[in-house]
């Protein structure tokens, strides 16, 4: 029983990380239709930024997070300006920006590998390393912190898309770009904002997970894959789907390892088999896209 309750916290924390990366994908893909596999690399850039701010300069945690967020806004905005906009303006086919962003992925990874070296670097957690017992639930401080922050981000994102005018303009672009443009919505502003927001959310995932996995140049790709899987499970259309997808993936991973009677080498394949089976049953993911409302 102790194991189960510990694992609930651990899997929920991992699920929140996957969910945040899925949200980063979603923020970009919804209004623009572009899938940016570089979100994992953004998480890596933010983790390295957090390493500099927290471990090297030893700034307070909140200040560090704010600085990293500013850095990520710039990174997202620059990525859009340099790799996406020139292609869209020249009328490149939809897959061209995806390829350009894959190129940016390599650029980010190599920049970090050159700038920070190949070794993993330590990023301290928000409240130190320790075990917190909340009633029956038990886990590390950082696990509870990850869950709390992710809950706040998802609540904020949901509120933004459902309740604010700017959020609705994103939704309008997602539903029909041409109609939205005709209605006076500034498409390039929405695109730039979506990249910046995506970079901030991916960066947050990176900073939150870095105390566990350390900041290093290879940390991005696994996060990008886990986040993308979560996105597909969740349906790739709605904010709550991203979180749900992340949680399902993390629970499937960790409960398989802990309880399924399969050899350790095979356990990591089980969630992907589940994913394939799941997509056969529900090809559009768990949550269906919302219909256009009058």
């Amino acid at each position, binding site marked *: 029983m102790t194991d189960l309750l510990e694992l609930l916290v651990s899997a929920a924390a*991992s699920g929140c990380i996957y969910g945040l990366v899925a949200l980063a994908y979603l923020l970009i893909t919804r209004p623009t239709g572009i899938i940016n596999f570089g979100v994992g690399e953004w998480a890596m850039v933010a983790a390295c930024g957090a390493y500099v701010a927290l471990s090297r300069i030893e700034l307070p945690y909140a200040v560090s997070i704010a600085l990293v967020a500013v850095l990520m806004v710039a990174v997202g905005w620059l990525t859009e300006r340099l790799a996406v906009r020139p292609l869209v303006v020249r009328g490149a086919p939809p897959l061209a920006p995806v390829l350009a962003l894959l190129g940016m992925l390599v650029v980010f990874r190599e920049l970090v590998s050159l700038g920070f*070296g190949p070794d993993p670097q330590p990023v301290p957690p928000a409240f130190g*390393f320790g*075990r917190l017992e909340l009633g029956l639930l038990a886990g590390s401080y950082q696990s509870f912190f990850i869950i709390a922050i992710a809950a706040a981000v998802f609540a904020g994102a949901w509120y933004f898309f459902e309740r604010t005018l700017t959020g609705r303009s994103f939704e309008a672009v997602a539903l029909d770009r041409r109609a939205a443009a005709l209605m006076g919505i500034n498409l390039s502003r929405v695109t730039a904002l979506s990249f910046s927001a995506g970079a901030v959310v991916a960066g947050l995932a990176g900073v939150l997970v870095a105390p566990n*996995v350390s900041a290093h140049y290879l940390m991005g790709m696994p996060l990008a894959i886990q986040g993308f899987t979560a996105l597909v499970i969740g349906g790739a259309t709605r904010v709550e789907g991203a979180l749900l997808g992340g949680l399902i993936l993390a629970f499937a991973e960790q409960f398989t390892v802990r309880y399924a009677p399969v050899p350790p080498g095979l356990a990591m394949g089980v969630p992907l088999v589940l994913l394939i089976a799941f997509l056969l049953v529900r090809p559009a993911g768990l949550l269906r896209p919302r219909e256009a409302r009058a």
Partner: protein
Amino acid sequence: MKIASPRSGRMAGFAVRAALAAAALAMAPAMAQPIKIGIITDKVGPAKPYAEPVTAGAVFAAKELNAKGGVLGRQVELLIEDDQARPDISATAARKLVEAGATFILSLSLTPSTQQVQTVTLEARTPQLTPSNSGDTLTTQIDNPYFWQTGPLGSTQIATLLAYAANRSFKRVALVGENSDLGQLTNRSFKAGLEKSGVQIVAEEVVPRGSTTADPQMQKVRAAKPDAIFLTGVTTPENVLILRSYRQLGLKMPLLGNFNLSVPQTAVVAKGLLDGVVFVDAFDPAKPEARRFIEAYKKENGVEPYNLNGYGYDGLMLVADAIKRAGGTDKEKVRAAMQATQGYVGVLARWDRPTASPPASARASTATAWWCGCTKATGRARSSSRARSDAGAGTS
């Protein structure tokens, strides 16, 4: 080299005469071509954290040799190729080095890459050494008389750990590692070593690369109640996850790790998590050779070297020693000289001609200075309890 730009004709004449005289004086050594030694390393791939410091050690060794007049009066020229830890590129890189006239090839990338390079060195009859790979299979799968391995073999590591643990009589143990190629290979070596010594493995867990937690795996270990845990993972991020879960879940049984825990960066990232953890290392900074190496390296590069730099340094120095004894760069003579290496005292160990048979496994050289240590609460100071492992070391 600076080029003089004389201002007057007289000055120009003098300069030309001086240059000619200098050229004539320098003629004899200039005639001697440099000795080319190829290096296959990983500059961008997953082996980079290990390959880079090993390469830096080899580069430093070449600098040191050249500063003392080179080998046999010839300068040592390193031809460095990057294979991205991809075996498909490694073979091409090896061919390029052979064609460029490399007398010897040092393999500093991943074990599978080194394996692939062997197909080329065997065919091209070019001596090849890996001073840093720990995979036991390198000397057992291809019968390549041109290949040697002096790296920290998995079987040597587990033999050392078992020698250390001899008086602790572990009956039931758990193996925890990750799923990189080398991690799996180390796991296999450890498993074989444990099973050979009659220890029961009650749990065997793998933390996949890129995981965000090792809690489920360590919960299974906790449930299996082993007497000790042997850590076979070689990638630092996953090792740190394992160490963190070990503490977080309140596990108390001894934890014994492979040599990757001795890389200083592990102590930086796993701050406070390595206390009391036992691991193997071949680098003993207290030894005179190591002390001299540390001082010289620090003077040249401004940073203190560690074990991985030592592996690269010893590798290149072993090759230089063989070329010196061979009296030239004839590959067959160099091969024979390398095979006859006896009593070469390096930074890490004394390297001896292996005596074990069959011949294939005999080319894994014997390092007789492996020892175990455990970190204390402060820094990387190790406990005085050491265990040397001579038995079976280096022969797979």
